[in-house]
């Protein structure tokens, strides 16, 4: 996707094919000859890890769908039949359920890395926005997948989240009825969630292709935040990036396998092993951990409509990041003030995650409000102003110089 490929197939058959459809050249230029900055650290391996996770989710999901029944009377039973009667069904389901959590864990690291090193800045704005779109699609997909189990938490999460739309003035209730396909969360809701949960991963895969395309047009950012200037600044994707990505993927799989095989229900809520019962409200309705920061933002605001706007605003604001950050320097490595505000923001995000799991009372509400305020202030006040006031450190002349400097 970048530059002309020098790919020359050896075999006659491949040469014949290449003349008609140069897919070999495309793969070669994208994943073999593609120049990557030589100073990439391990935080840059999460793009590959995320692609792997999407693949794992799609493959396990397709097989699970062969055994799953999207009906309010049968969904929970079919999930349990997968766990008990399908060969390696427990492995498929635990991989898929924990895989969603691992997918989000990896995407959060990927996003924090992008923000720290200024990967959203010119010329990578479109690349960044495509990433935000993928993240939004992931949230929708993950939520609907959680509902499919049709346990108590599935049902009540579906009720709470779809009810958010009732905050829209005038048409809110109509929209909620339309989302439900009825006057309560029921069989039509479960059916459409199943349909969309199957569809959206392929939409994600499509946007991922655009994301990688945009990446290969602009080239990768790197820890120094300066563009490669000569061939000395880059190494070919294969073998250098492939083997580095491969090593860290294997390490990531160890963590993943730990959850699948040893603590498969650690991230789930016990109530989701109780079949959905519209007549009984659970003592606490808690979303999956990867939505907790946004849940905390929602609950920190007493007005429902403004709370919902803040919830969606906290995600959409990411799309404006390239223009909210006014600094000319990309990498946080050379921005001493930004660095402090950034880590404070990471603490606010994790803090909000913790608060999202707490009851909305007393000190928890005050802390949620402070963290929410800082979450938005980071984007709306800190980043726009820092560009004007911050005294940045001198940038290295080239990537290879920054590598040698770091080694000395």
């Amino acid at each position, binding site marked *: 996707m970048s530059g002309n490929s020098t790919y020359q197939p050896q075999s006659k058959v491949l040469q014949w094919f290449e003349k008609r459809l140069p897919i070999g050249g495309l793969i070669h230029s994208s994943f073999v000859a593609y120049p990557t900055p*030589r100073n990439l650290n391990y935080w840059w391996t999460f793009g590959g890890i995320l692609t792997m996770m999407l693949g794992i989710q799609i493959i396990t999901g397709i097989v699970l769908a062969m055994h799953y029944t999207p009906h309010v009377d049968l969904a929970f*039973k079919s999930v*349990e*039949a997968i*766990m*008990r*009667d399908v060969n390696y069904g*427990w*492995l498929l389901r*635990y991989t898929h359920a924990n895989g969603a959590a691992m997918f989000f864990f990896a995407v959060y690291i990927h996003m924090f890395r992008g923000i720290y090193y200024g990967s959203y800045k010119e010329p990578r704005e479109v690349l960044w926005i495509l990433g935000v779109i993928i993240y939004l699609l992931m949230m929708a997909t993950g939520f609907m997948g959680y509902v499919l189990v049709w346990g108590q938490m599935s049902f009540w999460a579906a009720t709470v989240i779809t009810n958010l739309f009732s905050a829209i003035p005038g048409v809110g209730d109509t929209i909620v009825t339309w989302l439900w396909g009825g006057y309560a969360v029921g069989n039509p809701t479960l059916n459409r969630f199943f349909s969309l949960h199957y569809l959206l991963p392929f939409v994600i895969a499509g946007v991922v292709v655009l994301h990688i395309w945009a990446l290969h047009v602009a080239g990768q950012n790197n820890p120094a935040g300066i563009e490669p200037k000569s061939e000395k600044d880059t*190494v070919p994707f294969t*073998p*250098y990036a492939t*083997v*580095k990505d*491969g*090593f860290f993927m*294997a*390490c990531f*799989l*160890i963590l993943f*396998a730990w*959850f*699948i*095989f*040893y*603590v*498969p*229900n*650690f991230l789930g809520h*016990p*109530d989701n*092993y*109780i*079949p959905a019962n519209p007549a009984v409200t659970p*003592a606490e309705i808690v979303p999956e951990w990867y939505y907790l920061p946004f849940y905390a933002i929602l*609950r*920190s*605001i*007493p*007005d429902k409509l*403004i709370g919902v*706007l*803040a919830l969606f*605003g906290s995600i959409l*604001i990411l799309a*404006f990041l390239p223009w909210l950050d006014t600094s000319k320097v990309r990498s946080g490595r050379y921005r001493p003030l930004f660095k402090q505000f950034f880590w404070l923001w990471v603490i606010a995000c994790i803090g909000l995650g*913790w608060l999202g799991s707490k*009851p*909305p*009372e*007393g000190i928890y*509400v*005050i802390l949620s*409000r402070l963290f*929410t*305020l800082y979450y*938005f202030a980071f984007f*709306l006040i800190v980043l726009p102003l820092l560009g004007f006031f911050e005294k940045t450190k001198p940038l290295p002349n080239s990537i290879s110089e920054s590598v040698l400097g770091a*080694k000395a």
Partner: protein
Amino acid sequence: MTNKRTIIALAAAGLVAGLVAGTAAPAAAQEHQVPPPAMKWSFAGPFGKYDEAQLQRGFKIYKEVCSSCHSMDLLSIGSLADAGGPGFTAAQAAAIAATYKIADLDDKGQPIERAGRPADHFPAPFPNAAAAAAANGVAPPDMSTLAKARGYQRGFPTFLFDIVTQYQEAGPDYIHAILNGYKEAPKGFTVPAGGHYNEYFPGHVIAMPQPLADGQVTYDDGSPQTLAQYSKDVTAFLMWAAEPKLVQRKRTGFQVMIFLILLSGLLYFTKKKVWSAVH
């Protein structure tokens, strides 16, 4: 652009309003729960396995006591003979199945009761949830997934250590505690009609009367016929019922771990070798 400004302005206004309004949110009624004592379970940890004799004793308690009120209808009777379970032989499981009466239709379409087969699921004691509730006050929960559907708050930072120590036994610990938690209500505590005082139940008032007491079930293998023993055995059985593939899972996990650690090691040295050319 105006759209974005509106959203930002609204969000900012909401935040300011929220902070000014103070902590007006209603306090959620968090019922006090006594943490159950942590037991030693044979199925805990990376090499955990079910104790076959214990599961067989637990099954006896389920059959003679629990099953008169609780259903367990996600399990087939034949699964008693599955690998990693109570260790009944296929013939024993078939004999157990034959002791159950299963509602069915004969070849003329008339309702009959026939002897159970291994593929049949455990029959429920009540025809439906309403009948179960009418007979018991509240419908007793199905036992198929009960050991995974119960637990208790571990709190910070214990819940993080649980990832490393592989603590997944909050459900069994809780069920075991409930079975041992029936006591005289403390002075000044009024137990409402139809309720029973239990130290470990959230709110302390449980609908289920004390189900097990010393000497209630006869063991054939000489194990002590005490509540302490019964409660451990039936809890282990319920854990198997909820997670019948646990033994396979942990065994496969160990193999996968060895493979992944070796793979990571080999990839690490390959990476070092490849990159040594450019460093």
